[in-house]
Protein backbone atom coordinates (compact mmCIF):
# COMPACT_ATOMS: atom_id res chain seq x y z
CA UNK A 1 0.00 0.00 0.00
CA UNK A 2 2.69 2.45 0.98
CA UNK A 3 4.44 1.80 -2.35
CA UNK A 4 1.48 2.63 -4.50
CA UNK A 5 1.02 5.88 -2.64
CA UNK A 6 4.48 6.97 -3.57
CA UNK A 7 4.05 6.09 -7.22
CA UNK A 8 0.49 7.26 -7.57
CA UNK A 9 -0.74 8.29 -10.98
CA UNK A 10 -2.67 11.17 -9.48
CA UNK A 11 -1.74 14.58 -10.88
CA UNK A 12 -1.45 17.86 -9.12
CA UNK A 13 1.30 17.08 -6.65
CA UNK A 14 3.48 19.99 -7.70
CA UNK A 15 0.57 22.37 -8.05
CA UNK A 16 -1.10 21.65 -4.74
CA UNK A 17 2.05 21.34 -2.67
CA UNK A 18 3.40 24.48 -4.28
CA UNK A 19 0.22 26.41 -3.74
CA UNK A 20 -0.14 25.16 -0.17
CA UNK A 21 3.39 26.16 0.72
CA UNK A 22 3.08 29.50 -1.01
CA UNK A 23 -0.17 30.47 0.67
CA UNK A 24 0.95 29.06 4.00
CA UNK A 25 4.13 31.08 3.85
CA UNK A 26 2.38 34.28 2.88
CA UNK A 27 -0.32 34.16 5.52
CA UNK A 28 1.22 32.21 8.38
CA UNK A 29 4.93 31.53 8.19
CA UNK A 30 6.40 34.85 7.09
CA UNK A 31 4.39 36.87 9.63
CA UNK A 32 5.40 34.44 12.37
CA UNK A 33 9.00 34.68 11.20
CA UNK A 34 8.79 38.45 11.66
CA UNK A 35 8.07 37.88 15.32
CA UNK A 36 10.88 35.36 15.75
CA UNK A 37 13.33 37.74 14.08
CA UNK A 38 12.12 40.57 16.30
CA UNK A 39 12.76 38.48 19.38
CA UNK A 40 16.17 37.41 18.13
CA UNK A 41 17.43 40.96 18.44
CA UNK A 42 17.82 40.17 22.14
CA UNK A 43 20.84 38.53 23.66
CA UNK A 44 20.39 35.09 25.17
CA UNK A 45 20.72 36.63 28.61
CA UNK A 46 17.97 39.16 28.01
CA UNK A 47 15.79 36.49 26.47
CA UNK A 48 16.16 34.24 29.49
CA UNK A 49 15.53 37.17 31.83
CA UNK A 50 12.17 37.76 30.13
CA UNK A 51 11.24 34.09 30.19
CA UNK A 52 12.32 33.39 33.75
CA UNK A 53 10.85 36.46 35.40
CA UNK A 54 8.87 35.20 38.44
CA UNK A 55 5.70 36.85 37.17
CA UNK A 56 6.08 35.21 33.80
CA UNK A 57 6.72 31.83 35.41
CA UNK A 58 3.63 32.24 37.57
CA UNK A 59 1.67 32.99 34.42
CA UNK A 60 2.97 29.84 32.67
CA UNK A 61 1.85 27.74 35.61
CA UNK A 62 -1.58 29.31 35.52
CA UNK A 63 -1.97 29.24 31.74
CA UNK A 64 -0.75 25.68 31.30
CA UNK A 65 -2.41 24.37 34.44
CA UNK A 66 -5.85 25.72 33.59
CA UNK A 67 -5.54 24.76 29.91
CA UNK A 68 -4.55 21.24 30.86
CA UNK A 69 -7.37 20.94 33.36
CA UNK A 70 -9.87 22.32 30.86
CA UNK A 71 -8.65 19.94 28.15
CA UNK A 72 -8.96 16.99 30.56
CA UNK A 73 -12.49 17.98 31.56
CA UNK A 74 -13.29 18.32 27.88
CA UNK A 75 -11.86 14.90 27.09
CA UNK A 76 -14.13 13.24 29.62
CA UNK A 77 -17.28 15.23 28.93
CA UNK A 78 -16.54 15.64 25.24
CA UNK A 79 -16.43 11.86 24.94
CA UNK A 80 -19.67 11.47 26.85
CA UNK A 81 -21.36 14.14 24.73
CA UNK A 82 -20.06 12.69 21.48
CA UNK A 83 -21.19 9.23 22.59
CA UNK A 84 -24.66 10.48 23.44
CA UNK A 85 -24.96 12.36 20.17
CA UNK A 86 -23.76 9.47 18.04
CA UNK A 87 -25.27 6.45 19.72
CA UNK A 88 -28.47 7.60 21.34
CA UNK A 89 -31.53 9.26 20.02
CA UNK A 90 -33.25 11.58 22.47
CA UNK A 91 -35.40 14.67 22.23
CA UNK A 92 -33.28 17.75 21.56
CA UNK A 93 -30.36 15.77 20.19
CA UNK A 94 -30.22 17.69 16.92
CA UNK A 95 -30.47 20.95 18.85
CA UNK A 96 -27.56 20.06 21.11
CA UNK A 97 -25.57 18.89 18.11
CA UNK A 98 -26.07 22.23 16.41
CA UNK A 99 -25.09 24.14 19.55
CA UNK A 100 -21.72 22.45 19.87
CA UNK A 101 -20.19 24.82 17.32
CA UNK A 102 -21.48 27.91 19.05
CA UNK A 103 -18.25 28.72 20.90
CA UNK A 104 -16.61 29.04 17.47
CA UNK A 105 -19.14 31.56 16.27
CA UNK A 106 -19.52 33.65 19.39
CA UNK A 107 -16.87 36.35 19.78
CA UNK A 108 -14.63 35.39 22.65
CA UNK A 109 -15.38 38.68 24.38
CA UNK A 110 -19.09 37.84 24.40
CA UNK A 111 -18.39 34.39 25.82
CA UNK A 112 -16.27 36.02 28.49
CA UNK A 113 -18.87 38.61 29.44
CA UNK A 114 -21.69 36.06 29.41
CA UNK A 115 -19.78 33.49 31.46
CA UNK A 116 -18.78 36.13 33.98
CA UNK A 117 -22.41 37.20 34.29
CA UNK A 118 -23.59 33.61 34.77
CA UNK A 119 -20.91 32.63 37.25
CA UNK A 120 -20.66 35.93 39.18
CA UNK A 121 -21.90 35.86 42.76
CA UNK A 122 -25.26 37.24 41.70
CA UNK A 123 -25.41 35.16 38.51
CA UNK A 124 -27.64 32.16 37.82
CA UNK A 125 -25.03 29.55 38.63
CA UNK A 126 -22.70 31.69 40.69
CA UNK A 127 -25.38 32.09 43.36
CA UNK A 128 -25.68 28.35 43.82
CA UNK A 129 -21.93 27.85 43.83
CA UNK A 130 -21.40 30.74 46.24
CA UNK A 131 -23.77 29.03 48.64
CA UNK A 132 -21.43 26.05 48.55
CA UNK A 133 -18.53 28.41 49.18
CA UNK A 134 -17.11 28.16 45.70
CA UNK A 135 -16.05 31.33 43.96
CA UNK A 136 -15.59 30.94 40.24
CA UNK A 137 -15.12 34.37 38.73
CA UNK A 138 -11.78 36.11 39.24
CA UNK A 139 -10.10 32.87 40.26
CA UNK A 140 -8.32 30.11 38.35
CA UNK A 141 -11.61 28.24 38.34
CA UNK A 142 -13.14 30.96 36.21
CA UNK A 143 -10.28 30.71 33.73
CA UNK A 144 -10.81 26.95 33.57
CA UNK A 145 -14.52 27.41 32.89
CA UNK A 146 -13.80 29.83 30.04
CA UNK A 147 -11.17 27.55 28.53
CA UNK A 148 -13.45 24.54 28.82
CA UNK A 149 -16.12 26.36 26.84
CA UNK A 150 -13.63 27.47 24.18
CA UNK A 151 -12.07 24.01 23.80
CA UNK A 152 -15.22 21.89 23.98
CA UNK A 153 -16.07 21.85 20.24
CA UNK A 154 -12.61 20.57 19.37
CA UNK A 155 -13.01 17.41 21.42
CA UNK A 156 -16.63 16.68 20.56
CA UNK A 157 -16.10 17.26 16.86
CA UNK A 158 -13.04 15.06 16.60
CA UNK A 159 -14.50 12.19 18.62
CA UNK A 160 -17.89 12.18 16.90
CA UNK A 161 -16.81 10.82 13.49
CA UNK A 162 -14.44 8.32 15.07
CA UNK A 163 -17.18 6.95 17.30
CA UNK A 164 -19.53 6.66 14.35
CA UNK A 165 -16.93 4.57 12.62
CA UNK A 166 -16.17 2.01 15.28
CA UNK A 167 -16.66 -1.28 13.56
CA UNK A 168 -19.88 -2.55 14.92
CA UNK A 169 -19.42 -6.03 13.55
CA UNK A 170 -16.34 -6.25 15.70
CA UNK A 171 -18.30 -5.16 18.75
CA UNK A 172 -21.02 -7.64 17.94
CA UNK A 173 -18.58 -10.44 17.37
CA UNK A 174 -16.92 -9.72 20.67
CA UNK A 175 -20.22 -9.65 22.50
CA UNK A 176 -21.33 -12.86 20.88
CA UNK A 177 -18.12 -14.43 22.03
CA UNK A 178 -19.08 -13.44 25.54
CA UNK A 179 -17.02 -10.34 26.17
CA UNK A 180 -18.43 -8.03 28.82
CA UNK A 181 -19.53 -4.60 27.86
CA UNK A 182 -16.58 -3.14 29.73
CA UNK A 183 -14.16 -5.34 27.78
CA UNK A 184 -15.76 -4.32 24.51
CA UNK A 185 -15.39 -0.70 25.44
CA UNK A 186 -11.87 -1.05 26.70
CA UNK A 187 -10.48 -3.32 23.99
CA UNK A 188 -12.42 -2.24 20.91
CA UNK A 189 -14.08 1.11 21.21
CA UNK A 190 -11.50 2.96 23.25
CA UNK A 191 -8.48 2.12 21.07
CA UNK A 192 -10.36 3.15 17.92
CA UNK A 193 -11.43 6.46 19.37
CA UNK A 194 -8.20 7.19 21.21
CA UNK A 195 -6.35 8.94 18.34
CA UNK A 196 -9.31 11.23 17.72
CA UNK A 197 -9.66 11.91 21.42
CA UNK A 198 -5.98 12.69 21.63
CA UNK A 199 -6.25 15.11 18.72
CA UNK A 200 -9.23 16.80 20.30
CA UNK A 201 -7.42 17.01 23.61
CA UNK A 202 -4.34 18.55 22.04
CA UNK A 203 -6.32 21.08 20.02
CA UNK A 204 -8.34 22.11 23.07
CA UNK A 205 -5.15 22.34 25.13
CA UNK A 206 -3.28 24.35 22.50
CA UNK A 207 -6.21 26.69 21.94
CA UNK A 208 -6.54 27.22 25.68
CA UNK A 209 -2.94 28.32 26.08
CA UNK A 210 -3.39 31.17 23.64
CA UNK A 211 -6.90 32.23 24.59
CA UNK A 212 -7.24 35.87 25.59
CA UNK A 213 -10.59 37.48 24.80
CA UNK A 214 -12.84 35.41 27.03
CA UNK A 215 -10.37 34.82 29.85
CA UNK A 216 -9.64 38.48 30.38
CA UNK A 217 -13.17 39.15 31.59
CA UNK A 218 -13.40 36.28 34.04
CA UNK A 219 -9.81 36.04 35.24
CA UNK A 220 -9.36 38.95 37.66
CA UNK A 221 -5.89 39.58 36.19
CA UNK A 222 -4.07 39.87 39.53
CA UNK A 223 -0.30 39.61 39.02
CA UNK A 224 1.14 36.29 40.26
CA UNK A 225 -2.37 34.95 40.86
CA UNK A 226 -4.72 35.20 37.93
CA UNK A 227 -2.57 36.72 35.22
CA UNK A 228 -2.30 34.64 32.02
CA UNK A 229 0.68 34.71 29.67
CA UNK A 230 -1.14 36.39 26.75
CA UNK A 231 -2.02 39.25 29.12
CA UNK A 232 1.67 39.66 29.91
CA UNK A 233 2.31 40.05 26.18
CA UNK A 234 -0.28 42.81 26.08
CA UNK A 235 1.31 44.46 29.11
CA UNK A 236 4.72 44.38 27.44
CA UNK A 237 3.22 45.97 24.35
CA UNK A 238 1.66 48.71 26.48
CA UNK A 239 5.17 49.59 27.55
CA UNK A 240 6.34 49.63 23.93
CA UNK A 241 8.49 46.59 24.72
CA UNK A 242 7.94 44.94 21.34
CA UNK A 243 11.00 42.78 21.71
CA UNK A 244 9.92 41.44 25.10
CA UNK A 245 6.44 40.80 23.74
CA UNK A 246 7.90 38.98 20.76
CA UNK A 247 10.09 36.89 23.08
CA UNK A 248 7.08 35.78 25.11
CA UNK A 249 5.21 35.20 21.86
CA UNK A 250 8.02 32.99 20.60
CA UNK A 251 8.06 30.78 23.65
CA UNK A 252 4.31 30.29 23.39
CA UNK A 253 4.60 29.64 19.69
CA UNK A 254 7.37 27.13 20.27
CA UNK A 255 5.32 25.21 22.81
CA UNK A 256 2.25 25.16 20.58
CA UNK A 257 4.30 23.97 17.63
CA UNK A 258 5.93 21.24 19.66
CA UNK A 259 2.61 19.98 20.98
CA UNK A 260 0.93 19.96 17.58
CA UNK A 261 3.91 18.36 15.91
CA UNK A 262 4.07 15.53 18.41
CA UNK A 263 0.40 14.79 17.98
CA UNK A 264 0.71 14.84 14.19
CA UNK A 265 3.75 12.57 14.26
CA UNK A 266 1.91 10.25 16.61
CA UNK A 267 -0.99 10.11 14.20
CA UNK A 268 1.20 9.55 11.16
CA UNK A 269 2.87 6.72 13.06
CA UNK A 270 -0.49 5.30 14.03
CA UNK A 271 -1.71 5.38 10.46
CA UNK A 272 1.37 3.65 9.17
CA UNK A 273 1.06 0.97 11.81
CA UNK A 274 -2.55 0.48 10.83
CA UNK A 275 -1.68 0.00 7.17
CA UNK A 276 1.11 -2.43 7.99
CA UNK A 277 -1.26 -4.31 10.21
CA UNK A 278 -3.83 -4.58 7.45
CA UNK A 279 -1.32 -5.99 5.07
Amino acid at each position, binding site marked *: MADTRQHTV*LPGFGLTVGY*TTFFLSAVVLIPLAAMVIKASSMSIGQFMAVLLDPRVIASYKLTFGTSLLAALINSVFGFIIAWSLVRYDFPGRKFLDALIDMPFAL*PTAVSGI*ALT*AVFAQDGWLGQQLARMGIQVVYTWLGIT*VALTLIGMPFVVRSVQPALAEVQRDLEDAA*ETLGATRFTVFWRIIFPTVLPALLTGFTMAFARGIG*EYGSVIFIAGNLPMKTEITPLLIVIKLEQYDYVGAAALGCIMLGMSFFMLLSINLLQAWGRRRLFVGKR
Partner: protein
Amino acid sequence: MSSGPSRQLLSELASRPGRNSLADKLIRWMFISLSVVFLSALLISPLMMVLTSAFAKGMAVYARSFLDEDTFAAIKLTLTIALIVVPLNTVFGIAAAWAIAKFEFRGKSILITAIDLPIAVSPIISGLIYILLFGSQGWFGLWLQEHDISIIFALPGMLLATMFVTFPYVARELIPLMQQLGNDEEEAAITMGAGGLMTFIRVTLPKIRWGLVYGMILTNARAMGEFGAVSVVSGHIRGLTNTMPLHIEILYNEYDYVGAFAVASLLMALAIITLLIKTVIEWRGLRG
Protein backbone atom coordinates in the same frame (compact mmCIF):
# COMPACT_ATOMS: atom_id res chain seq x y z
CA MET B 1 -19.97 16.01 10.31
CA SER B 2 -21.48 12.91 11.74
CA SER B 3 -25.17 13.22 11.38
CA GLY B 4 -25.97 11.10 14.38
CA PRO B 5 -27.56 7.70 14.32
CA SER B 6 -29.48 6.82 11.19
CA ARG B 7 -32.77 5.00 11.46
CA GLN B 8 -31.32 1.67 10.37
CA LEU B 9 -28.53 1.96 12.84
CA LEU B 10 -30.86 2.68 15.70
CA SER B 11 -33.12 -0.22 14.87
CA GLU B 12 -30.09 -2.40 14.48
CA LEU B 13 -28.82 -1.28 17.86
CA ALA B 14 -32.17 -2.03 19.40
CA SER B 15 -32.34 -5.49 17.90
CA ARG B 16 -29.04 -6.57 19.35
CA PRO B 17 -29.14 -9.16 22.06
CA GLY B 18 -29.01 -7.79 25.56
CA ARG B 19 -29.37 -4.22 24.42
CA ASN B 20 -32.37 -3.50 26.55
CA SER B 21 -30.96 -4.64 29.83
CA LEU B 22 -31.30 -2.47 32.89
CA ALA B 23 -27.59 -1.66 32.94
CA ASP B 24 -27.78 -0.48 29.39
CA LYS B 25 -30.67 1.82 30.10
CA LEU B 26 -28.88 3.15 33.15
CA ILE B 27 -25.75 3.95 31.20
CA ARG B 28 -27.79 5.55 28.46
CA TRP B 29 -29.70 7.66 30.94
CA MET B 30 -26.52 8.67 32.70
CA PHE B 31 -24.66 9.65 29.54
CA ILE B 32 -27.49 11.72 28.18
CA SER B 33 -28.14 13.54 31.43
CA LEU B 34 -24.45 14.20 31.97
CA SER B 35 -24.23 15.67 28.48
CA VAL B 36 -27.28 17.80 28.99
CA VAL B 37 -26.16 19.07 32.40
CA PHE B 38 -22.66 19.84 31.21
CA LEU B 39 -23.84 21.67 28.10
CA SER B 40 -26.54 23.54 30.00
CA ALA B 41 -24.12 24.88 32.56
CA LEU B 42 -21.34 25.73 30.21
CA LEU B 43 -22.95 26.55 26.91
CA ILE B 44 -26.68 27.08 27.16
CA SER B 45 -26.67 29.31 30.23
CA PRO B 46 -24.30 31.89 28.72
CA LEU B 47 -26.30 31.80 25.49
CA MET B 48 -29.50 32.33 27.45
CA MET B 49 -27.83 35.17 29.27
CA VAL B 50 -27.02 36.82 25.93
CA LEU B 51 -30.62 36.42 24.77
CA THR B 52 -32.25 37.63 27.98
CA SER B 53 -30.00 40.69 28.04
CA ALA B 54 -30.77 41.40 24.39
CA PHE B 55 -34.50 41.31 25.04
CA ALA B 56 -34.32 42.83 28.54
CA LYS B 57 -36.07 46.01 27.45
CA GLY B 58 -38.49 44.40 25.07
CA MET B 59 -38.72 43.64 21.41
CA ALA B 60 -38.91 47.27 20.27
CA VAL B 61 -35.64 48.30 21.89
CA TYR B 62 -34.04 45.14 20.54
CA ALA B 63 -35.11 45.93 16.99
CA ARG B 64 -34.11 49.55 17.32
CA SER B 65 -30.53 48.64 18.12
CA PHE B 66 -30.07 47.47 14.55
CA LEU B 67 -31.16 50.79 13.09
CA ASP B 68 -27.98 52.44 14.31
CA GLU B 69 -25.78 53.48 11.40
CA ASP B 70 -22.56 52.25 13.01
CA THR B 71 -24.06 48.89 13.86
CA PHE B 72 -25.12 48.54 10.26
CA ALA B 73 -21.62 49.42 9.08
CA ALA B 74 -20.17 46.82 11.44
CA ILE B 75 -22.48 44.12 10.12
CA LYS B 76 -21.58 45.03 6.56
CA LEU B 77 -17.86 44.94 7.28
CA THR B 78 -18.10 41.57 9.00
CA LEU B 79 -20.00 40.07 6.08
CA THR B 80 -17.50 41.53 3.61
CA ILE B 81 -14.61 39.99 5.49
CA ALA B 82 -16.32 36.61 5.68
CA LEU B 83 -17.21 36.77 2.00
CA ILE B 84 -13.59 37.27 1.00
CA VAL B 85 -11.90 35.06 3.57
CA VAL B 86 -14.09 31.96 3.31
CA PRO B 87 -13.56 31.32 -0.43
CA LEU B 88 -9.82 31.97 -0.18
CA ASN B 89 -9.38 29.60 2.71
CA THR B 90 -11.64 27.02 1.08
CA VAL B 91 -9.50 26.88 -2.04
CA PHE B 92 -6.44 26.67 0.14
CA GLY B 93 -7.98 23.93 2.24
CA ILE B 94 -8.81 21.83 -0.80
CA ALA B 95 -5.34 22.24 -2.27
CA ALA B 96 -3.68 21.43 1.03
CA ALA B 97 -5.88 18.41 1.62
CA TRP B 98 -5.20 17.08 -1.87
CA ALA B 99 -1.45 17.47 -1.42
CA ILE B 100 -1.39 15.94 2.03
CA ALA B 101 -3.92 13.15 1.65
CA LYS B 102 -3.01 11.93 -1.81
CA PHE B 103 0.76 11.94 -1.69
CA GLU B 104 3.52 10.82 0.58
CA PHE B 105 6.42 13.18 0.94
CA ARG B 106 9.10 14.23 3.33
CA GLY B 107 8.20 16.83 5.92
CA LYS B 108 4.49 16.14 5.70
CA SER B 109 3.99 16.14 9.44
CA ILE B 110 5.71 19.49 9.66
CA LEU B 111 3.48 20.86 6.91
CA ILE B 112 0.36 19.65 8.71
CA THR B 113 1.61 21.16 11.94
CA ALA B 114 2.27 24.47 10.26
CA ILE B 115 -1.29 24.46 8.93
CA ASP B 116 -2.64 23.68 12.41
CA LEU B 117 -0.54 26.35 14.04
CA PRO B 118 -3.00 29.28 13.80
CA ILE B 119 -5.47 27.41 16.02
CA ALA B 120 -2.91 27.29 18.78
CA VAL B 121 -1.42 30.75 18.34
CA SER B 122 -2.77 33.35 20.74
CA PRO B 123 -4.98 35.93 19.00
CA ILE B 124 -2.77 38.58 20.53
CA ILE B 125 0.18 37.15 18.62
CA SER B 126 -1.80 36.82 15.39
CA GLY B 127 -2.46 40.54 15.54
CA LEU B 128 1.03 41.44 16.67
CA ILE B 129 2.77 39.71 13.76
CA TYR B 130 0.99 41.87 11.21
CA ILE B 131 1.86 44.97 13.20
CA LEU B 132 5.50 43.89 13.09
CA LEU B 133 5.26 43.46 9.32
CA PHE B 134 3.11 46.36 8.21
CA GLY B 135 3.21 48.83 11.12
CA SER B 136 5.01 52.15 10.68
CA GLN B 137 8.10 50.63 12.25
CA GLY B 138 7.62 47.23 10.65
CA TRP B 139 9.44 45.63 7.73
CA PHE B 140 7.27 47.17 5.04
CA GLY B 141 6.07 50.15 7.07
CA LEU B 142 8.10 52.85 5.37
CA TRP B 143 7.42 51.63 1.86
CA LEU B 144 3.70 51.40 2.51
CA GLN B 145 3.65 54.87 3.99
CA GLU B 146 5.44 56.35 1.01
CA HIS B 147 2.93 54.78 -1.32
CA ASP B 148 -0.04 55.75 0.82
CA ILE B 149 -1.18 52.17 1.23
CA SER B 150 -2.93 51.21 4.43
CA ILE B 151 -2.77 47.58 5.41
CA ILE B 152 -3.21 47.56 9.15
CA PHE B 153 -5.97 49.70 10.62
CA ALA B 154 -7.80 49.14 7.34
CA LEU B 155 -9.60 46.31 5.58
CA PRO B 156 -6.51 44.45 4.23
CA GLY B 157 -5.04 44.02 7.70
CA MET B 158 -8.32 42.78 9.08
CA LEU B 159 -8.62 40.34 6.17
CA LEU B 160 -5.13 39.03 6.80
CA ALA B 161 -5.72 38.60 10.52
CA THR B 162 -9.03 36.85 9.91
CA MET B 163 -7.46 34.65 7.26
CA PHE B 164 -4.72 33.68 9.68
CA VAL B 165 -7.14 32.77 12.42
CA THR B 166 -9.46 30.73 10.18
CA PHE B 167 -6.68 29.26 8.10
CA PRO B 168 -6.73 25.60 9.23
CA TYR B 169 -10.41 24.77 9.44
CA VAL B 170 -11.23 23.59 5.90
CA ALA B 171 -7.94 21.73 5.56
CA ARG B 172 -8.40 20.08 8.95
CA GLU B 173 -11.83 18.81 8.00
CA LEU B 174 -10.75 17.50 4.61
CA ILE B 175 -7.39 15.88 5.35
CA PRO B 176 -8.61 13.01 7.56
CA LEU B 177 -11.64 12.52 5.34
CA MET B 178 -9.63 12.23 2.13
CA GLN B 179 -7.02 10.07 3.80
CA GLN B 180 -9.68 7.68 4.88
CA LEU B 181 -11.38 7.57 1.49
CA GLY B 182 -8.18 6.50 -0.23
CA ASN B 183 -6.99 7.02 -3.79
CA ASP B 184 -8.46 4.07 -5.65
CA GLU B 185 -11.34 5.77 -7.41
CA GLU B 186 -9.28 8.78 -8.44
CA GLU B 187 -6.54 6.54 -9.74
CA ALA B 188 -9.05 4.56 -11.75
CA ALA B 189 -10.46 7.73 -13.28
CA ILE B 190 -7.02 9.03 -14.22
CA THR B 191 -5.99 5.69 -15.68
CA MET B 192 -9.10 5.77 -17.81
CA GLY B 193 -7.99 9.08 -19.20
CA ALA B 194 -9.87 11.72 -17.19
CA GLY B 195 -8.12 15.02 -16.56
CA GLY B 196 -6.97 16.05 -13.10
CA LEU B 197 -9.53 18.78 -12.58
CA MET B 198 -12.31 16.61 -13.99
CA THR B 199 -11.34 13.79 -11.66
CA PHE B 200 -11.45 16.13 -8.73
CA ILE B 201 -14.84 17.60 -9.62
CA ARG B 202 -16.50 14.34 -10.64
CA VAL B 203 -14.89 11.82 -8.31
CA THR B 204 -13.45 13.52 -5.24
CA LEU B 205 -15.77 16.44 -4.68
CA PRO B 206 -18.97 14.41 -4.32
CA LYS B 207 -17.30 12.27 -1.69
CA ILE B 208 -15.97 15.11 0.39
CA ARG B 209 -18.74 17.66 0.05
CA TRP B 210 -20.12 17.26 3.57
CA GLY B 211 -16.71 17.70 5.08
CA LEU B 212 -16.13 20.66 2.81
CA VAL B 213 -19.42 22.30 3.74
CA TYR B 214 -18.74 21.77 7.42
CA GLY B 215 -15.24 23.18 7.10
CA MET B 216 -16.60 26.25 5.34
CA ILE B 217 -19.23 26.71 8.02
CA LEU B 218 -16.59 26.61 10.74
CA THR B 219 -14.39 29.02 8.79
CA ASN B 220 -17.32 31.36 8.34
CA ALA B 221 -18.30 31.19 11.99
CA ARG B 222 -14.77 31.91 13.16
CA ALA B 223 -14.32 34.66 10.58
CA MET B 224 -17.42 36.47 11.77
CA GLY B 225 -16.75 35.96 15.45
CA GLU B 226 -13.02 36.64 15.69
CA PHE B 227 -12.28 39.26 18.31
CA GLY B 228 -8.71 39.27 19.59
CA ALA B 229 -6.60 39.31 16.44
CA VAL B 230 -8.86 41.69 14.55
CA SER B 231 -8.99 43.98 17.55
CA VAL B 232 -5.22 44.45 17.37
CA VAL B 233 -5.18 45.48 13.70
CA SER B 234 -8.50 47.27 13.43
CA GLY B 235 -7.87 50.73 14.86
CA HIS B 236 -11.45 50.68 16.17
CA ILE B 237 -12.69 53.49 13.96
CA ARG B 238 -16.42 53.71 14.47
CA GLY B 239 -18.35 53.12 11.31
CA LEU B 240 -15.21 52.26 9.34
CA THR B 241 -13.11 49.48 10.82
CA ASN B 242 -15.37 48.06 13.50
CA THR B 243 -16.50 44.50 12.95
CA MET B 244 -19.46 43.06 14.81
CA PRO B 245 -17.41 41.58 17.66
CA LEU B 246 -15.56 44.86 18.13
CA HIS B 247 -18.78 46.82 17.94
CA ILE B 248 -20.25 44.58 20.64
CA GLU B 249 -17.41 45.53 22.95
CA ILE B 250 -17.89 49.21 22.17
CA LEU B 251 -21.62 49.10 22.85
CA TYR B 252 -21.01 47.20 26.07
CA ASN B 253 -18.52 49.84 27.13
CA GLU B 254 -21.08 52.53 26.42
CA TYR B 255 -23.44 50.91 28.91
CA ASP B 256 -25.67 49.99 25.97
CA TYR B 257 -26.11 46.41 27.15
CA VAL B 258 -29.20 45.77 25.05
CA GLY B 259 -27.43 46.92 21.91
CA ALA B 260 -24.32 44.88 22.66
CA PHE B 261 -26.17 41.65 23.27
CA ALA B 262 -28.55 42.31 20.38
CA VAL B 263 -25.59 42.32 18.00
CA ALA B 264 -24.24 39.22 19.76
CA SER B 265 -27.57 37.49 19.32
CA LEU B 266 -27.40 38.31 15.62
CA LEU B 267 -24.06 36.51 15.42
CA MET B 268 -25.67 33.56 17.19
CA ALA B 269 -28.53 33.65 14.73
CA LEU B 270 -26.15 33.69 11.78
CA ALA B 271 -24.35 30.69 13.22
CA ILE B 272 -27.60 28.83 13.72
CA ILE B 273 -28.74 29.66 10.18
CA THR B 274 -25.53 28.30 8.68
CA LEU B 275 -25.87 25.18 10.81
CA LEU B 276 -29.47 24.79 9.68
CA ILE B 277 -28.36 25.04 6.07
CA LYS B 278 -25.83 22.35 6.81
CA THR B 279 -28.48 20.09 8.30
CA VAL B 280 -30.81 20.62 5.35
CA ILE B 281 -28.12 19.90 2.78
CA GLU B 282 -27.05 16.84 4.69
CA TRP B 283 -30.58 15.56 4.93
CA ARG B 284 -31.16 16.04 1.21
CA GLY B 285 -27.82 14.48 0.50
CA LEU B 286 -28.71 11.40 2.50
CA ARG B 287 -31.97 10.98 0.68
CA GLY B 288 -30.61 11.69 -2.78
